[in-house]
């Protein structure tokens, strides 16, 4: 104690590195007065494997199994990013069908990521029925992934030049079935979560951020759209065949946890529509334009920045090649690099300790993006 008999008002809390409400080990040091947080400091680093260093040790094609493990709840953006970046550097053009398949895989991955997001945020608020429902329903989508790519989570399916295998036969109808089932379930989810007075009381007006502050502080993706700003990489910086697909970008104006959750909820519906459009209009034809011999393929020197709209925000790769058989440098710019560090630190100030975990989940922070 500090000598004088002053009553200690401020406490230090350590949240994490167990799962305080996010997918992955992450910890926050809080200084709070009683229940109200005065200051927060994010402590990442528990999941640092030195991805970028390891990718410089492997040939171009050998990095394909590696990239999907960067952000595990939403693996496909990483695979598509790496493939698109390498294709752009090497000037390797991708067959039409492969681009449509990639869009389908991206949107399916977004649906399953949002389902686990909604399950997570309601779990953090003590509403345990929702994670049981949503993780269970998400599993149907994982079965479709298992049929298409051979693995539930680590798909290793998109590779530079296209995709590794074509759709198995009978896959479209089973996928449509799953999408109908999830779409039918959405009304149940809405009533379970958004109509729930406890959820509304705990999330409306909590963890709000000001739209201009959000743009300037690098908030991207659904978190930005929750502040009324219509910014979506699929429309701003179109890639693959998104410019041939009609879909709206839902926006909310609440800028708080409720609207962030609502954005994800509506995006599930949009993604289901996109996947249906893709299934209707997918052309026949080759699905892979083989790159060179995996042990000798040299990508011409150059650098490129590619970005994709992942379920957590704008995911970008900056790939540099010096003309060798291995990448010279790959910089992974995850969306949580801003959400997880100084956005959460500013957002938590003034909130109550019990809201730390739900707020972190509402921003959908994925610590492996920060640590790589």
């Amino acid at each position, binding site marked *: 104690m500090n000598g004088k008999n002053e009553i200690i008002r401020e406490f230090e809390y350590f949240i994490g590195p*167990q799962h305080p409400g996010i997918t992955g*080990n992450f910890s926050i040091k809080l200084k709070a007065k009683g229940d109200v947080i005065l200051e927060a400091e994010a402590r990442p*680093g528990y999941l640092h494997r030195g991805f970028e260093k390891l990718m410089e040790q492997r040939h171009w094609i050998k990095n394909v*199994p590696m990239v999907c493990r960067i952000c*595990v709840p939403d693996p496909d953006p990483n695979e598509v990013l790496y493939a698109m970046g390498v294709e752009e550097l090497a000037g390797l053009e991708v067959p039409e069908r492969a681009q449509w398949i990639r869009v389908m895989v991206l949107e399916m991955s977004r649906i399953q990521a949002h389902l686990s997001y909604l399950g997570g945020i309601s779990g953090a608020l003590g509403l345990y029925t929702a994670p049981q429902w949503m*993780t*269970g329903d*998400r*599993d149907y989508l994982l079965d479709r992934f298992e049929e298409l790519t051979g693995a539930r*989570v680590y798909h290793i399916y998109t590779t530079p030049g296209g995709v590794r295998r074509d759709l198995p036969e009978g896959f479209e109808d089973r996928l449509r079935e799953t999408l109908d089932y999830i779409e039918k379930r959405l009304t149940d989810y809405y009533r379970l979560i958004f109509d729930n007075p406890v959820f509304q009381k705990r999330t409306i007006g909590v963890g709000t951020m000001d739209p201009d502050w959000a743009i300037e502080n690098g908030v991207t993706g659904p978190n930005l759209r929750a502040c009324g700003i219509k910014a979506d990489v699929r429309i701003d910086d179109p890639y693959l065949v998104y410019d041939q697909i009609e879909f709206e970008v839902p926006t909310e104006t609440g800028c708080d946890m409720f609207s962030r959750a609502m954005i994800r909820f509506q995006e599930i519906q949009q993604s289901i529509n996109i996947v249906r459009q893709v299934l209707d209009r997918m052309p026949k034809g080759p699905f892979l334009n083989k790159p060179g011999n995996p042990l000798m393929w040299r990508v011409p020197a150059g650098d490129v920045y590619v970005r994709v709209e992942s379920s957590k925000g704008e995911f970008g790769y900056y790939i540099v090649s010096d003309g060798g058989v291995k990448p010279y440098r790959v910089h992974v710019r995850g969306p949580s690099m801003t959400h997880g560090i100084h956005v959460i630190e500013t957002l938590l100030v003034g909130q109550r300790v019990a809201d730390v975990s739900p707020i972190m989940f509402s921003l959908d922070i994925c610590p492996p993006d920060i640590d790589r």
Partner: protein
Amino acid sequence: MTKAKPPKGLKGWAQGRSLWMLHFCTGCGAIEMPPTMTSRYDMERFGITPMATPRQADLLLITGYLTVKTLKRVIRSYEQMPEPKYVVGFGSCTVNGGMYWDSYNTIKRLDLYLPIDLYIAGCMPRPEAIIDGFTELIEGIKKGKFDGWIRYKENLEYYKRNQAMVMDIRKWSLDAELAERIWNEVQEERRKRFERATVKHVYELAERIPEGLPK
């Protein structure tokens, strides 16, 4: 001090049927835990539920690679768990480094640092494999087969020495002066290893020039 023995018979059956899993899933394998815990595969049928604090948990799941930073917290949590306690290693990373075999920040062989009772193969093991692992764990506990924590207590010196090689164990061990002693003993070997490990590497364009030609 009588030699600790794993529970058997009725006590073992009771212990096996109500394992509480410490909610500390390391590495990228944690993504397969929610489906196993929730309605689709539902491991609560076996009485296994997540538990927030190590004080009430008796099953520690290492579900993937361990960075040095996480290893420190895992060891502290493990040492705080009451006995009998069990550790299950998931996936390739806990056995021989897995995909990150050449990373400078992840530990490669988990059983140098913690006594692992059971390994589940896969990268990442699927819920079917996890549930199969749990049923085998429950059978084993009933028969009193798993005595990892006893191994840890008896060879504490061995484990602490290995841990000290990769991390500063003084702040992260229950037994402080043992940690202090081993930490000082190991400094010399650790510094030598570090020197050998950080020799400057000359970069040349990544080419694949084959060797094996006769001179």
